[in-house]
C-alpha cells in the first residue's frame, strides 16, 4: 500500500511537504497587450495563414513571411494579377509537321520555318512554300529593293 506523500525531491534534496503538490500547465505564449487595431494574427483561438496576391511569382518551394506572395509552380493558371484564374486557352494551328525553329509574320500571314518545311498559315491550313531548305536557324524581314 503506497504511503502518504510527505515530501518532494528538488535538486537532490528531500523537502518535507505541506499539503499537496499543485500541478498546472504553463501557457506557451505570454498574454498579449494590443495597442493597435487587431489583425488576423490576433484572432483566437486558431492562427490564420492567408494567400491572396501571388504576383511575386513562382519558384518558392518553402514559405516564409516575407515571401507570402510567392508560389511554387503553376500550370495553366494565371498568377500575374492580384487574383488567380485559369490560364489562356491554347489553340493548335493545324499540323505543321516539323519542329518550328522560327515563326514570323510575312505578307500578312504567319509563317513557320522548320527543317525542310517552310509554310504559311492561311487561317485554316498550312500552305507549303518550300520543302528543301534544311536546318534553318534564323529568319528576318528586310525592306529593300524588290527587283
Amino acid at each position: 500500500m503506497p504511503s502518504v506523500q510527505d515530501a518532494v525531491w528538488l535538486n537532490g534534496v528531500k523537502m518535507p511537504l505541506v499539503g499537496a503538490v499543485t500541478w498546472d500547465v504553463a501557457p506557451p505564449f505570454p498574454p498579449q497587450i494590443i495597442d493597435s487595431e487587431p489583425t488576423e494574427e490576433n484572432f483566437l483561438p486558431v492562427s490564420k495563414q492567408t494567400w491572396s496576391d501571388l504576383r511575386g511569382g513562382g519558384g518558392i518551394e518553402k514559405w516564409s513571411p516575407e515571401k507570402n506572395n510567392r508560389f511554387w509552380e503553376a500550370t495553366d493558371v494565371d498568377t500575374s494579377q492580384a487574383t488567380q484564374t485559369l490560364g489562356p486557352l491554347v489553340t493548335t494551328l493545324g499540323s505543321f509537321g516539323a519542329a518550328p525553329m522560327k515563326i514570323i509574320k510575312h505578307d500578312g500571314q504567319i509563317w513557320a520555318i522548320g527543317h525542310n518545311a517552310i509554310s504559311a498559315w492561311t487561317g485554316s491550313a498550312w500552305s507549303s512554300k518550300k520543302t528543301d531548305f534544311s536546318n534553318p536557324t534564323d529568319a528576318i524581314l528586310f525592306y529593300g529593293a524588290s527587283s
Partner: protein
Amino acid sequence: MDLTVRPASYVGSDTNSGGWTRSGGAASDWETLRSASDSTYLYDGTVSGSVATSFYTDCIDQDIYNGSPSTISKITVYARAKMDSNATPATIALTERDATGARQPELLNHQNLTTSWAEYEQVFTTHDGGYGYDFGFYPDNSGFDGSELQAGFVVQHGTVGVFVSQLWIVITHEYINQTLTAVAELNVPAFTRVVNNARTLSVDTPVGLNPSIVRGATYGRVFDTVILGIAPTINRSQNLGTWLVIASTDSGSIRTRDGSSWAVAAYDDTPNPSLPAANPASGAWLAQFDNRLTLLSPENAGFTYSLTNDIILEWTHKAFFPNLPIEFTDMFVGRDAGNLPALNFLAHDGMYYLDVFENFVFGKTELNWEYDITSGKKGMYFKGNHYATSGGQGIYELAGTDANTIGPSSDDGLPQDSAGDIVDMIGVGYWIVCAINGSSGRKSSIMKRHINGNHWHTVYKTAAVNTPITSLFWDSGTLYFGEGTNVKSLALSSAMDNVKLLPTYEVASSGELIYPWFHSRFESVPKVAHRLRSTTQDMTSTEYVDWYYRVDQETDWTLLGRFATSPAPTALSFAAAGTQFERIQLKSAPARGSTTTNRPITESVTLEYEVVPEIIWKWSINIDADKETIAALTTAVAAKTLLPFYPSGDKSGDVYYVRIAGLPRSQKGTEFGQEGEYKVDLTMVTEA
C-alpha cells in the same frame, strides 16, 4: 508569249460563191501572204446591203506544234483591208471558228473600212459558247471546241468592192514549255541582266515566231548636277518591297517575296567581284543593321553584309571576321556605351560586340561567362537593357554596365519536371517572355517576367513530356509558339494584363497551382490544420476550384474539397479533429465548364491552424522548511541549470527538470535557527 501564225501555203477558199475573186497575181482564191504586202489580195466587188459575206482560211492544224500542254489566254485575228470607194462605207468583222464550224458571232464588232490599206484586229479570249481555247496543244479529242482553228472575216454594207490582202492570227500563250526541234525565226532581244531561267522554244513548221521577254523592274537613275571639281554621285531609286530572308547552318540563306519563288539571299562576291551574286555565302544568323542585312556564320568566322537597302545586287564577305574558334548562337542589334546602335552576337561563353563596315573589330561585353553549351541561345535589346540567356534557365540582364541575373532559376528554381534550357526569348509589352525546352523526359514551358518585377509567372506548360517548345513569336495580342511539330497560339495581351477584365478572353479548361510548403512561424512545433477558407468570384457548379493538400512528405495529394460558390463558399474541413502537420502544402485545381470565356477566380485562401507545442508543466508546493531546507532552497533558486524535480516524492518515479519561478515564504528564527513555510513555484522551461 505571242505566237504569230500566217498562212504558209494555200489556205483559203471563197465561201461566198461567186462573190470573191482573185486579183493581182493570186493563183487561187487565197494564197500565201507571208509578208506585209498588199500586192496580192482577195477582192469582192459587190459587197452590198446588210448581207454578211464571210471568208475563212483553211484549218490551222495543231500539228504545227510539238510541245506540252499550255494555256491560250487569247487569240487576236488581224487583217489588212480597204474598200474601193468612199460611198456608203463597208465594214469588216474579224472572227474565228473551229473545225466544226462553230464560230464567234459575226456581228460583234464591225469596223468601218476606208479607201486606204489599214490593219484591223479583234481579240478573243474564249471560243464560241465561252469555252477556253485548247487549239494546238491537246489531242484532237476535245469535241465541241475543236483542236483546229480557222481565222476569217465578215464584210457587209456598202455597194463597194472590198480588198483583203492579209489575214493572220496571234495566239498568246501562258506557261509555254517547248523544245526547239527545227529552225525557227527567233529574234531574241539582248539582255542586260543574267536570268537563270532557261527558255527554249520550238516548232516543227517554220512560222513567224517572235518571242519576247519583258522585265517589270523600274530603275530610275538620276545623276546629280555636276559641280566643277566635285565627283558626281548616283542616286538610285528602285521598287521597294519586303523580303523574307531565312538562314541555315548548312544551306546559306534564301529570300522570297511571297513564297512562290525563292533565290539565294547572301553572296560571297569576294572570289569574283566583277560577277556579283555568283557564290552563295554561308551563315546562320541574320540582323538588320545600318540599313544593311548582315549574316553571321554559325562558327569560327564569316560575316557578310548587303548594300544599303538592297539585298539583291552586291554583298561583301569578310571571311576571317570575327575570328573566334567557337560556335556562334545568335546575333541582334543593341546599344553601345554611347547609346548608339551596335551589333552584338552571342556565343557559348558570352555576348560580343561587332564594330563593322569600317573597322571590323569585335570584343566581349560585360556579359560573359564560362563556356556552357546550353547558353547564349537568345539575346535581345528590350526596353533599354540587353538580355542574354546564360545557360539552363539563366538570363543575364545588362543594365548600363551592371549585369544582373534574372532567370527563372533564381530562388528555389523550378520543379524537376519543368527544368530545362531557355531556347527563345522575346519582349511583349513590358513582359519578358521565354521558352524553356524541358528536353528528354521533361515538360516544356513558357514563362513571363515583368521588367519591373522580380520573378516569373507560368504562361503555359506542356501537358506531356518530350514535346519541346522551340520558338516564340508575338503579333497583335497572340503569342505563337512551336511545340513538338506543331505551331500553337494563345492570347497574350500587351495592353491588358488583367485578363479577367477581358470578356472575350478564352481560358484553359483546367489548371493547377501549387503553393509553397507552409511551416508557419513555428517550425518544428506541431500544428493542426482545421479549415480552409476562400474568397472567390464567378464560381458555379461548373466553374470551381478543387483543393488538395499533403502533409510533411511529398506524397500523393489528398482531396480536401471544392469551392463552387461565390463570394464566400463554405469552408473546407481537415476532419473534425483536424490534421496534424509539421509542414503542409496546398494545391488548387481550377476548372471551367464548356464555355471558354467562363472561369473561376480565387481572390484569397486562408488556412486556419493551431500551433500546438508539447506540454510544459508547472507546480506549486508548500515546504515546511528548516534551516537545512532553507539553505537547499537558497542554493536551488540560484542555480543556473535546471533542477531535477520528482513531484511524486519517489526518486524512482518521473523526473522533470524545472526552474524555481517563485519562492514566497514566511520564516522566523528558532532555537534551531531560521524555520518557516516556503511556497515554491516550479516550472518547466521546455517540454519533457
